[in-house]
């Protein structure tokens, strides 16, 4: 899909053409999913036209705080990110894996074939494209393949959007995942709102993207349009509210497992799992086995789980991670550190959701900095008797 990745907008469309584009996607069999306002937050759900988008709304975010606000213009993508991420569709929060019926000596197992729903994801941000690629490595990037994830991902159409503004909890620039989309999309838009001018500069990322774009009215992009994208993205970078110093971060966290900072974080952390629910890369799940009243029909369901729950690490004899301290340490060390060892990249894309949606405003960027400040030289314990 990156074959014709030009990194430059080649065409320009207006809002009517964008509506036509959504129509094209629907006529090609896609269920079109995009941002819309629900319960005072911008969430992902099915949309019909650009009227369903959060037109004229923006979000104000800070640690533990999220508010929608009127912008005073008609921007379609003038907000940052809501609590949802696209994993909602690719890795559903509850999913039946199989069901089985026994009848005397016979037993019949029915796998879930995987729904052949093609989804078009609208307004995917740069950090989210990275998050999707990171999570895909978990489910379809090793010798074991999750067939339902495979079905969901292989036919997805992604219409990306370059961020025209950054939130206070954003730190994608320091994680090298944004704010400019850099691949992994079919089409990418940059929204230009300048007085009466309201246009979308379009980059083509795939053949199917070019085909879809070809069905709507567009004009050729000019050199100044390309500069416009650069300016908008540069402005977003300048607004970026937070940053993480990623130098040596994996080893930093691993060798600081005994740092007293973890105890301080644990005093605030409610172990509520919000951060893992809103995180676009968190992939942990559990399974539930259920039967009907006859006891002859059983189902196995997979549900999102979180390393913050007490049950998560249970083995006969008790929990491996019974303290909140150990659970927060596990989450952050995995996300920023051991993820590199396992999947060749950070598990964090700098979207800031875990900061915004933490009920007690724990800030992962601040905690990394705190660990770095308080690093103790001899934090690693050699194996010793009675340790």
């Amino acid at each position, binding site marked *: 899909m990156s074959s014709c990745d030009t990194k430059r907008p080649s065409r320009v469309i207006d809002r009517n053409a964008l509506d036509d584009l959504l129509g094209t996607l629907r006529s090609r069999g896609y269920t079109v999913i995009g941002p819309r306002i629900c319960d005072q937050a911008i969430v992902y759900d099915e949309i019909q036209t650009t009227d369903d988008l959060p037109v004229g709304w923006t979000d104000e975010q800070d640690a533990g705080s999220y508010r929608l606000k009127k912008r005073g213009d008609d921007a379609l993508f003038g907000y940052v990110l809501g609590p949802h991420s696209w994993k909602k569709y690719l890795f559903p929060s509850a999913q039946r894996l199989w069901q089985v019926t026994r009848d005397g000596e016979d037993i019949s197992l029915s*796998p879930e074939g995987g729904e052949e729903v093609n989804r078009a994801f609208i307004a995917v941000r740069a950090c989210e494209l990275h998050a999707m690629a990171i999570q895909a490595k978990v489910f379809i990037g090793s010798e074991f393949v999750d067939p339902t994830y495979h079905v969901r*991902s292989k036919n997805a159409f992604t219409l990306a959007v370059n961020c025209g503004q950054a939130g206070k909890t954003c730190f994608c620039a320091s994680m090298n995942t944004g704010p400019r989309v850099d691949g*992994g999309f079919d089409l990418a838009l940059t929204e230009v709102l300048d007085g009466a001018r309201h246009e979308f500069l379009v980059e083509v990322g795939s053949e199917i993207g070019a085909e879809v774009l070809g069905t709507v009215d567009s004009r050729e992009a000019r050199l100044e349009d390309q500069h416009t994208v650069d300016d908008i993205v540069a402005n977003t970078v300048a607004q970026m509210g937070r940053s993480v110093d990623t130098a040596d971060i994996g080893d930093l966290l691993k060798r600081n497992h005994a740092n007293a900072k973890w105890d301080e974080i644990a005093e605030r952390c409610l172990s509520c799992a919000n951060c893992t629910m809103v995180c676009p890369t968190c992939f942990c799940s559990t399974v539930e086995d259920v039967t009907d009243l006859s006891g002859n029909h059983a189902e196995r369901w997979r549900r999102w789980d979180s390393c913050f729950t007490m049950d998560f690490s249970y083995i006969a004899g008790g929990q491996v991670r019974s303290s909140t301290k150990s659970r927060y340490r596990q989450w952050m060390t995995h996300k920023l550190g051991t993820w590199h060892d396992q999947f060749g990249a950070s598990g964090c894309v700098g979207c800031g959701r875990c900061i915004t949606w933490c009920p007690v405003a724990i800030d992962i960027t601040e905690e990394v900095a705190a660990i770095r400040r308080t690093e103790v030289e001899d934090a690693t314990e050699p194996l010793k008797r009675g340790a």
Partner: protein
Amino acid sequence: MSITELAKEPMVLTDPMLPTWFRVQSVRRETHDTFTLELAGPNDGGEFSFAPGQFNMLYAFGVGEVPISISGNPVTTDPLVHTIRAVGAVTRAMQKLKRGDLIGVRGPFGSAWPVMDAVGRDVVIVTGGIGLAPLRPAFYHILAHRNDYNRVVLLYGARTRDDILYRDELKQWRGELDLEVEVTVDSSVGRWRGNVGVVTKLIPRAGFDPENTTALICGPEVMMRFTIQDLLNRGVEKKNVYVSMERNMKCAVGFCGHCQFGSKFICRDGPVFRFSDIEDIFGIREL
């Protein structure tokens, strides 16, 4: 690589979460809380090949699934054998299974004991409690290829006399002239005149050449920690010490995240680890 690029890579789409149905051939009581299931495969032949140290996910109909190491003979894999301790809802349901009942099996998963790398060397097996079960296939392998190894030592610790697993086999192995098999119990009540004390007490007097020894350890983590220390004290190299780790598991294929152990997934990178690969994290509490 983008998500759609990854998804377009050619891949075999067998669902690793789907169990295969095996039939219970026998349920044998081992101790008051452990039992052994012998299972026949769906094609009546079994033909379930595995490497010593690997595990299966066993599913009790409607109750749930648990990771259980394979404890049968890898040389003759029919039937598939699992020794299980009844400690939770799923394993208690399995304890109640009868001959002819069906059980779901996924596997085999995970890494194996280095029985090939140990060829030509002394092999020291140190186990505690039900930790003998995942090591029995390695011991079977060694017995079947006895001439490939030098001295073979099995040190086994149980809580009490009544907790000793595979008692008849231990007696038989102990009777072999080219095996050193020692059993100890933590506490002696009643008719026991054998060794008393933790299993590590047996290490100083066991006959093996530390520099030419491969050690295989399975038991509670605290037991493994002291065992490793005593083996290292005798001069066994870290890279020749192997341990089998246990963590919560829901999938066994790296999807569920439950078995994270530092940068390792116990299900895929383990359960058997070379100690030198995990020594930095092995002793960390609540990791």
